[in-house]
Protein backbone atom coordinates (compact mmCIF):
# COMPACT_ATOMS: atom_id res chain seq x y z
CA UNK A 1 0.00 0.00 0.00
CA UNK A 2 1.43 3.36 -0.99
CA UNK A 3 0.08 6.74 0.01
CA UNK A 4 0.05 9.48 -2.60
CA UNK A 5 1.00 13.02 -1.59
CA UNK A 6 -2.57 14.21 -1.35
CA UNK A 7 -3.60 11.33 0.90
CA UNK A 8 -0.54 11.86 3.08
CA UNK A 9 -1.32 15.59 3.38
CA UNK A 10 -4.94 14.89 4.29
CA UNK A 11 -4.05 12.34 6.95
CA UNK A 12 -1.35 14.63 8.35
CA UNK A 13 -3.83 17.46 8.66
CA UNK A 14 -6.46 15.23 10.29
CA UNK A 15 -3.95 14.02 12.84
CA UNK A 16 -2.65 17.57 13.36
CA UNK A 17 -6.09 18.88 14.25
CA UNK A 18 -6.75 15.92 16.51
CA UNK A 19 -3.45 16.23 18.35
CA UNK A 20 -3.97 19.97 18.64
CA UNK A 21 -7.24 19.31 20.43
CA UNK A 22 -5.52 16.82 22.72
CA UNK A 23 -2.74 19.31 23.48
CA UNK A 24 -5.31 21.96 24.36
CA UNK A 25 -6.98 19.49 26.74
CA UNK A 26 -3.67 18.56 28.36
CA UNK A 27 -2.81 22.24 28.73
CA UNK A 28 -6.11 22.81 30.58
CA UNK A 29 -5.26 19.93 32.93
CA UNK A 30 -1.73 20.90 33.85
CA UNK A 31 -1.47 24.62 33.04
CA UNK A 32 1.70 24.35 30.98
CA UNK A 33 2.33 24.94 27.27
CA UNK A 34 2.48 21.80 25.11
CA UNK A 35 4.95 21.77 22.20
CA UNK A 36 3.96 19.59 19.25
CA UNK A 37 5.99 18.20 16.38
CA UNK A 38 4.69 17.61 12.87
CA UNK A 39 3.06 14.18 12.60
CA UNK A 40 4.91 11.43 10.77
CA UNK A 41 2.69 9.28 8.53
CA UNK A 42 4.16 5.92 7.52
CA UNK A 43 3.05 2.52 6.28
CA UNK A 44 5.09 -0.14 8.07
CA UNK A 45 5.27 -3.89 8.44
CA UNK A 46 6.25 -5.50 11.75
CA UNK A 47 9.99 -5.50 11.04
CA UNK A 48 9.93 -1.86 9.93
CA UNK A 49 7.98 -0.98 13.10
CA UNK A 50 10.75 -2.46 15.22
CA UNK A 51 13.36 -0.42 13.36
CA UNK A 52 11.27 2.76 13.54
CA UNK A 53 10.84 2.46 17.31
CA UNK A 54 14.41 1.37 17.94
CA UNK A 55 15.40 4.60 19.73
CA UNK A 56 12.59 4.56 22.30
CA UNK A 57 13.48 4.43 25.99
CA UNK A 58 13.81 0.99 27.54
CA UNK A 59 11.21 1.73 30.17
CA UNK A 60 7.93 3.18 28.97
CA UNK A 61 4.37 3.56 30.22
CA UNK A 62 1.63 3.23 27.61
CA UNK A 63 -2.12 3.62 27.39
CA UNK A 64 -3.75 1.98 24.39
CA UNK A 65 -7.34 2.16 23.17
CA UNK A 66 -8.64 0.12 20.26
CA UNK A 67 -11.20 1.91 18.11
CA UNK A 68 -13.49 0.86 15.30
CA UNK A 69 -16.05 2.38 13.00
CA UNK A 70 -15.50 3.24 9.36
CA UNK A 71 -11.85 2.41 10.10
CA UNK A 72 -10.24 0.14 12.62
CA UNK A 73 -7.14 0.61 14.66
CA UNK A 74 -5.41 1.17 17.94
CA UNK A 75 -4.39 4.46 19.51
CA UNK A 76 -1.55 4.73 21.99
CA UNK A 77 -0.10 7.32 24.29
CA UNK A 78 3.50 6.48 25.17
CA UNK A 79 5.65 8.05 27.89
CA UNK A 80 9.16 7.36 29.13
CA UNK A 81 8.73 6.21 32.74
CA UNK A 82 10.20 9.39 34.24
CA UNK A 83 7.84 11.59 32.21
CA UNK A 84 4.92 9.44 33.32
CA UNK A 85 5.89 9.88 36.99
CA UNK A 86 6.28 13.64 36.63
CA UNK A 87 2.94 14.02 34.87
CA UNK A 88 1.09 11.98 37.51
CA UNK A 89 2.77 13.99 40.28
CA UNK A 90 1.62 17.27 38.69
CA UNK A 91 -1.93 16.01 38.16
CA UNK A 92 -2.37 14.55 41.63
CA UNK A 93 -0.26 17.02 43.65
CA UNK A 94 1.81 14.12 44.95
CA UNK A 95 5.58 14.41 45.29
CA UNK A 96 7.37 12.63 42.39
CA UNK A 97 9.07 10.27 44.85
CA UNK A 98 6.07 9.61 47.02
CA UNK A 99 5.00 6.01 47.58
CA UNK A 100 1.41 7.18 47.19
CA UNK A 101 2.21 8.00 43.58
CA UNK A 102 2.56 4.31 42.64
CA UNK A 103 -0.94 3.61 43.91
CA UNK A 104 -2.52 6.26 41.67
CA UNK A 105 -0.13 6.11 38.73
CA UNK A 106 -1.83 3.49 36.56
CA UNK A 107 -5.32 4.85 37.15
CA UNK A 108 -4.33 8.45 36.52
CA UNK A 109 -2.36 7.71 33.36
CA UNK A 110 -5.14 5.47 32.05
CA UNK A 111 -7.64 8.28 32.40
CA UNK A 112 -5.28 10.85 30.86
CA UNK A 113 -4.74 8.45 27.99
CA UNK A 114 -8.51 8.01 27.66
CA UNK A 115 -9.08 11.77 27.54
CA UNK A 116 -6.25 12.56 25.13
CA UNK A 117 -6.87 9.65 22.77
CA UNK A 118 -10.56 10.54 22.63
CA UNK A 119 -9.52 14.11 21.78
CA UNK A 120 -7.38 12.91 18.87
CA UNK A 121 -9.65 10.23 17.41
CA UNK A 122 -12.86 12.07 18.25
CA UNK A 123 -11.65 15.18 16.39
CA UNK A 124 -10.93 13.01 13.38
CA UNK A 125 -14.36 11.43 13.69
CA UNK A 126 -16.04 14.84 13.82
CA UNK A 127 -14.12 16.10 10.79
CA UNK A 128 -14.96 12.97 8.78
CA UNK A 129 -18.55 12.86 10.08
CA UNK A 130 -17.80 9.30 11.18
CA UNK A 131 -19.03 7.58 14.34
CA UNK A 132 -16.14 5.84 16.07
CA UNK A 133 -16.47 3.43 18.97
CA UNK A 134 -13.81 2.60 21.51
CA UNK A 135 -12.87 -0.29 23.74
CA UNK A 136 -11.71 0.25 27.30
CA UNK A 137 -8.23 1.74 27.63
CA UNK A 138 -5.39 -0.54 28.67
CA UNK A 139 -2.34 0.50 30.71
CA UNK A 140 1.05 -1.16 30.45
CA UNK A 141 4.54 -0.58 31.80
CA UNK A 142 7.42 -2.25 30.03
CA UNK A 143 9.61 -1.87 26.99
CA UNK A 144 8.82 -0.90 23.41
CA UNK A 145 9.34 -4.56 22.55
CA UNK A 146 6.56 -5.48 25.04
CA UNK A 147 4.33 -2.78 23.55
CA UNK A 148 4.80 -3.98 19.98
CA UNK A 149 4.03 -7.53 21.09
CA UNK A 150 0.58 -6.54 22.40
CA UNK A 151 -2.16 -8.30 20.47
CA UNK A 152 -3.60 -5.00 19.22
CA UNK A 153 -0.25 -3.97 17.73
CA UNK A 154 0.60 -7.17 15.87
CA UNK A 155 -1.14 -6.58 12.52
CA UNK A 156 1.13 -7.52 9.61
CA UNK A 157 0.99 -4.01 8.19
CA UNK A 158 -0.18 -0.75 9.67
CA UNK A 159 -0.54 2.88 8.77
CA UNK A 160 1.21 4.70 11.60
CA UNK A 161 0.60 8.33 12.51
CA UNK A 162 3.04 9.46 15.17
CA UNK A 163 3.47 12.82 16.92
CA UNK A 164 5.84 13.72 19.70
CA UNK A 165 4.79 16.32 22.25
CA UNK A 166 6.75 17.88 25.09
CA UNK A 167 6.17 20.05 28.13
CA UNK A 168 9.45 21.90 28.52
CA UNK A 169 8.91 23.36 32.00
CA UNK A 170 8.23 19.89 33.38
CA UNK A 171 10.76 17.99 31.23
CA UNK A 172 7.96 15.70 30.11
CA UNK A 173 7.69 14.21 26.66
CA UNK A 174 5.40 11.66 25.07
CA UNK A 175 4.14 10.26 21.82
CA UNK A 176 0.76 9.74 20.26
CA UNK A 177 0.75 6.76 17.94
CA UNK A 178 -2.22 5.77 15.85
CA UNK A 179 -2.17 2.39 14.15
CA UNK A 180 -4.71 1.99 11.36
CA UNK A 181 -5.51 -1.48 10.11
CA UNK A 182 -4.46 -1.58 6.48
CA UNK A 183 -7.42 -3.78 5.62
CA UNK A 184 -9.74 -0.91 6.56
CA UNK A 185 -7.50 1.64 4.91
CA UNK A 186 -9.60 1.94 1.73
CA UNK A 187 -12.61 2.86 3.86
CA UNK A 188 -10.49 5.43 5.69
CA UNK A 189 -9.37 7.00 2.41
CA UNK A 190 -12.95 7.02 1.12
CA UNK A 191 -14.03 8.81 4.30
CA UNK A 192 -11.24 11.37 3.86
CA UNK A 193 -12.11 11.97 0.21
Amino acid at each position, binding site marked *: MILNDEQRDLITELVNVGVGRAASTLN*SLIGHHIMLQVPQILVLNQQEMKQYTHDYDDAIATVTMPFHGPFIGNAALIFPQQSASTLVAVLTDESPNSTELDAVRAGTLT*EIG*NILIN*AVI*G*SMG*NMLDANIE*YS*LPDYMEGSMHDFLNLEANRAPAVLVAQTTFSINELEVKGDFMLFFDVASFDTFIEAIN
Partner: protein
Amino acid sequence: MAKILVTDDSGFLRKRTCAILKNAGHEVFEAENGEQCLEKLADIQPDCLFLDLIMPVMDGFEVLKTLQDAKNTIPVIVLTADIQESVQKECLGYGASSFLNKPPKESEVTDALNKALGH
Protein backbone atom coordinates in the same frame (compact mmCIF):
# COMPACT_ATOMS: atom_id res chain seq x y z
CA MET B 1 -27.60 21.17 49.03
CA ALA B 2 -28.28 18.33 46.60
CA LYS B 3 -27.47 14.61 46.67
CA ILE B 4 -25.39 13.75 43.64
CA LEU B 5 -24.18 10.38 42.37
CA VAL B 6 -20.94 10.46 40.32
CA THR B 7 -20.37 7.35 38.19
CA ASP B 8 -16.99 6.89 36.50
CA ASP B 9 -14.53 3.99 36.40
CA SER B 10 -11.68 6.48 36.83
CA GLY B 11 -10.85 7.27 40.46
CA PHE B 12 -8.88 10.27 39.23
CA LEU B 13 -11.90 11.78 37.49
CA ARG B 14 -14.33 10.91 40.29
CA LYS B 15 -12.06 12.71 42.74
CA ARG B 16 -11.93 15.86 40.59
CA THR B 17 -15.67 15.95 39.95
CA CYS B 18 -16.56 15.18 43.57
CA ALA B 19 -14.21 17.94 44.77
CA ILE B 20 -16.01 20.51 42.58
CA LEU B 21 -19.42 19.34 43.81
CA LYS B 22 -18.39 19.23 47.50
CA ASN B 23 -16.92 22.74 47.22
CA ALA B 24 -20.31 23.85 45.94
CA GLY B 25 -21.86 22.40 49.09
CA HIS B 26 -23.40 19.20 47.74
CA GLU B 27 -23.41 15.67 49.17
CA VAL B 28 -21.71 13.26 46.78
CA PHE B 29 -21.84 9.50 46.30
CA GLU B 30 -19.70 7.44 43.94
CA ALA B 31 -20.10 4.44 41.65
CA GLU B 32 -17.44 2.74 39.52
CA ASN B 33 -19.59 1.31 36.74
CA GLY B 34 -23.11 1.26 35.36
CA GLU B 35 -24.25 -1.69 37.44
CA GLN B 36 -23.19 -0.04 40.72
CA CYS B 37 -24.76 3.17 39.47
CA LEU B 38 -28.21 1.59 39.03
CA GLU B 39 -27.97 -0.11 42.45
CA LYS B 40 -27.02 3.16 44.15
CA LEU B 41 -29.68 5.15 42.29
CA ALA B 42 -32.31 2.90 43.84
CA ASP B 43 -30.76 3.17 47.34
CA ILE B 44 -29.80 6.83 47.46
CA GLN B 45 -32.41 8.46 45.21
CA PRO B 46 -30.04 11.29 44.30
CA ASP B 47 -31.15 14.62 42.90
CA CYS B 48 -28.77 14.29 39.95
CA LEU B 49 -26.46 11.76 38.28
CA PHE B 50 -23.11 12.46 36.63
CA LEU B 51 -22.44 9.58 34.24
CA ASP B 52 -19.35 8.45 32.31
CA LEU B 53 -19.94 6.46 29.12
CA ILE B 54 -17.16 3.93 28.60
CA MET B 55 -16.93 1.77 31.72
CA PRO B 56 -16.45 -1.92 32.43
CA VAL B 57 -19.29 -4.23 33.59
CA MET B 58 -22.01 -1.88 32.28
CA ASP B 59 -21.38 1.24 30.22
CA GLY B 60 -23.11 4.59 30.39
CA PHE B 61 -25.19 3.98 27.26
CA GLU B 62 -26.79 0.94 28.93
CA VAL B 63 -27.52 3.02 32.02
CA LEU B 64 -29.14 5.75 29.90
CA LYS B 65 -31.28 3.22 28.01
CA THR B 66 -32.30 1.49 31.25
CA LEU B 67 -33.29 4.79 32.85
CA GLN B 68 -35.19 5.91 29.76
CA ASP B 69 -37.12 2.61 29.65
CA ALA B 70 -37.96 2.99 33.33
CA LYS B 71 -39.18 6.58 32.67
CA ASN B 72 -36.58 7.91 35.08
CA THR B 73 -36.98 11.47 36.33
CA ILE B 74 -33.54 11.95 37.92
CA PRO B 75 -31.58 14.32 35.64
CA VAL B 76 -28.49 12.76 34.07
CA ILE B 77 -25.41 14.79 33.14
CA VAL B 78 -23.11 12.80 30.85
CA LEU B 79 -19.43 13.49 31.58
CA THR B 80 -17.21 11.79 29.02
CA ALA B 81 -13.89 11.96 27.23
CA ASP B 82 -15.71 11.25 23.94
CA ILE B 83 -15.93 14.54 22.07
CA GLN B 84 -17.85 13.26 19.06
CA GLU B 85 -20.96 15.26 18.15
CA SER B 86 -22.72 12.03 17.17
CA VAL B 87 -22.26 10.70 20.71
CA GLN B 88 -23.57 13.90 22.22
CA LYS B 89 -26.70 13.63 20.05
CA GLU B 90 -27.13 9.99 21.04
CA CYS B 91 -26.92 10.76 24.76
CA LEU B 92 -29.33 13.67 24.57
CA GLY B 93 -31.63 11.37 22.57
CA TYR B 94 -31.56 8.92 25.50
CA GLY B 95 -32.75 11.69 27.78
CA ALA B 96 -29.50 13.12 29.18
CA SER B 97 -29.96 16.62 30.59
CA SER B 98 -26.48 17.83 29.55
CA PHE B 99 -23.33 16.54 27.89
CA LEU B 100 -19.95 17.61 29.24
CA ASN B 101 -16.47 16.69 28.05
CA LYS B 102 -13.60 15.74 30.32
CA PRO B 103 -11.83 17.38 31.97
CA PRO B 104 -14.77 19.48 33.13
CA LYS B 105 -14.29 23.10 34.19
CA GLU B 106 -15.80 23.99 37.55
CA SER B 107 -18.16 26.49 35.88
CA GLU B 108 -19.35 23.84 33.38
CA VAL B 109 -20.19 21.43 36.21
CA THR B 110 -22.06 23.99 38.26
CA ASP B 111 -23.93 25.40 35.23
CA ALA B 112 -25.01 21.91 34.12
CA LEU B 113 -26.03 21.03 37.67
CA ASN B 114 -28.05 24.22 38.10
CA LYS B 115 -29.81 23.54 34.80
CA ALA B 116 -30.53 19.95 35.86
CA LEU B 117 -31.91 21.02 39.25
CA GLY B 118 -34.00 23.75 37.68
CA HIS B 119 -32.20 26.63 39.42
